């Protein structure tokens, strides 16, 4: 197991190198650079723009820019510097770190929400296959899957405005600073409800469908027949045996979900004004704030690999028959 982990982590290095190199090249190929916003201001002097170009190192060829960046990143003297944001003049990791907690929180709640709803529904739909319940739940799942996320977010906002039950987007109330810790907790929870539903609802349908199909598959298998023949109670058959086997593919899926944390909620962040990281990275890409983009790429690629790794470990833990060599 340890060697598997080590091998995966080592494989990460060439991948990160490849991706960051490619991204720098793409940024160079894309017309314009970070200073376009400045160029379009009526009172910006041409010499000022030149000085900024030098300041940001944008006057170097792109490969030089890349190797300069790489030189700072590689921790020769045990310090790794990923550069700073042109726009904010703040260290890249610090900038990303400011937004990451809110994003992770939303990913976790929406994933939990989706699983809590979808797995029981999937199991029930499988046990009562072809019943009215099965039909209705699958129709609802289809429906949830068929509304573009950004529009669902707007509907949620409209709902909040009409009923007054929920805050109009955001992460905390205006009075947040003046609240006691307990009140703060409830305040954040209150703000999280709608975004959680909007982000989570899309995955309910797919998780439910997978769960239902796997469950049916396993019910039909031989070991279930054997267990039933031995007189094991139906409930134990279903939950100790079938459920455990049926959930395997979902663990893999959760690993993938981990990797999409960074960009997964972009639309909801925009529409519901959620202070997450996706929006910031999107802007960094549009503005060509290059070190932020590179930092974000390093982060999301690492998460992809880590997510897959964690999923594999969880899989081995859930099903001792699985071995990695």
């Amino acid at each position, binding site marked *: 197991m340890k060697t598997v982990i080590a091998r995966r982590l080592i494989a990460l290095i060439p*991948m990160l190198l490849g*991706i960051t190199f490619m991204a720098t090249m793409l940024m160079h190929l*894309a017309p314009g650079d970070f200073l376009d916003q400045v160029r379009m201001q009526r009172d910006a002097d041409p010499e000022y723009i030149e000085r900024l170009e030098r300041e940001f190192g944008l006057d170097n060829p792109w490969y030089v820019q890349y190797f300069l960046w790489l030189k700072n990143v590689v921790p020769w003297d045990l310090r790794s510097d990923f550069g700073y944001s042109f726009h904010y003049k703040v260290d890249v990791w610090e900038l990303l770190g400011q937004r990451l907690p809110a994003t992770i929180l939303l990913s976790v709640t929406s994933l939990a929400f989706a699983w809590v709803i979808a797995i029981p529904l999937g199991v029930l739909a499988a046990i009562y296959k072809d019943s009215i319940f099965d039909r209705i739940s699958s129709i609802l799942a289809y*429906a949830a899957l*068929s509304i*573009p996320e950004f*529009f669902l977010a707007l509907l949620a906002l409209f709902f909040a405005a009409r009923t007054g039950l929920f805050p109009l987007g955001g992460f905390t109330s205006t009075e947040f600073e003046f609240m006691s810790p307990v009140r703060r907790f409830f305040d954040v929870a209150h703000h999280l409800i709608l975004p959680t539903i909007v982000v989570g609802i899309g995955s309910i349908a797919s998780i439910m469908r997978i769960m239902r199909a796997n469950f049916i598959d396993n019910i039909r298998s031989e070991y279930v027949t054997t267990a039933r023949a031995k007189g094991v109670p139906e409930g134990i058959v279903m939950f100790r045996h079938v459920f455990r086997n049926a959930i395997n593919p979902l663990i893999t899926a959760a690993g993938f979900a981990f990797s999409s944390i960074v960009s997964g909620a972009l*639309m909801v962040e925009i529409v519901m004004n959620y202070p997450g990281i996706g929006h910031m990275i999107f802007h960094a890409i549009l503005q060509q704030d290059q070190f932020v983009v590179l930092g974000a790429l390093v982060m999301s690629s690492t998460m992809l690999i880590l997510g897959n790794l964690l999923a594999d470990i969880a899989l081995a833990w859930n099903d001792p028959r699985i071995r990695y060599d």
Partner: protein
Amino acid sequence: MERPLGLAVLILLGCFYLVALFADFISPYTPPDQSLQKTYHPPTALFWENGRLHVQRYELADPDDMVYRKIEGEGAPVRFFARGHDYRLMGLIPTDRHLFLVDEPDRIYLLGSDETGRDNFSRLLYGARISLSIGLVGIAIIMVFGFLAGGLAGYFGGIWDNLTMRFIELVMAVPGLYLLLVLRGTFPDELSPGQTFFLIVIILSFLAWGGTARIIRGMTLSLRNRQFVMAAEVLGQSPLKIVGKHILPNVFSYLVVAASLSIPAFILGEAALSFLGLGIQEPSASWGLMLSQAQDMKVFMLNFWWLLLPGAAIFVTVIAFNVLGDVFRDIVDPKQKFLNR
């Protein structure tokens, strides 16, 4: 799900595609055709008078909120198979006949008009062309590439397999958004917005074929040890031929089901790209673009409900493709072995 549902859905989708194909004949106006005096116009009522169908005339009652009021008793006759703007029927036959029209300056807005007075109905029909074909183009690319790469990697195995899989991992990690921004910058002006958008879809598909390739590879790995493949090898058939002739039929059903289940992702993806401003551009129309333009509080508050119809169109189409995919799956793979995605 039972088969009758599948048939119903198939017929529904068939109608959609047919309507999209004949969009220029059915729609009275072209997508960019504006009428600034009639913006945010509600759907026009129709009435029967003197043996002819008439379209109700309206006046602007409140320019502050764009409220229109019927002018009682006034209307313009609807002319069927009338002459309007030129177009080529199915891209071939030049003609100017349209299913229905009214004489200018009256306008027929079956489904209302948008912020520059363009006919929502016509734009929905033209938009269907983009929204409905995007999935097909994307899926075709994904399937062809996924099958070739996955099939050959699985067949040869070893180092080839390893290389292909690593390459796929790299491709899947390419920031698609960046690639789009870069390549869009290099598209020449001569391309129409529709052509530009198809290029975007092609690029995105090239980034997305990896998943399919992986699954095909897995299936091929188990198929290649079967007797009929070994027999073909002994007979000295070329690898390409073996993959095409023996492997393909065995994974074909998977490809069909995966295709119909992936089309909705493209339709929704188009909407998402439009929302981010990376999709099809004005003055062309697509459902995603129209819906993202209706992403506006005044549409709700001033009750311009007809502007939300592209959302309904997306909704129905996506459900239909999902149902179709499930039905296909039930037919080709009753045991649901591979398709538990």
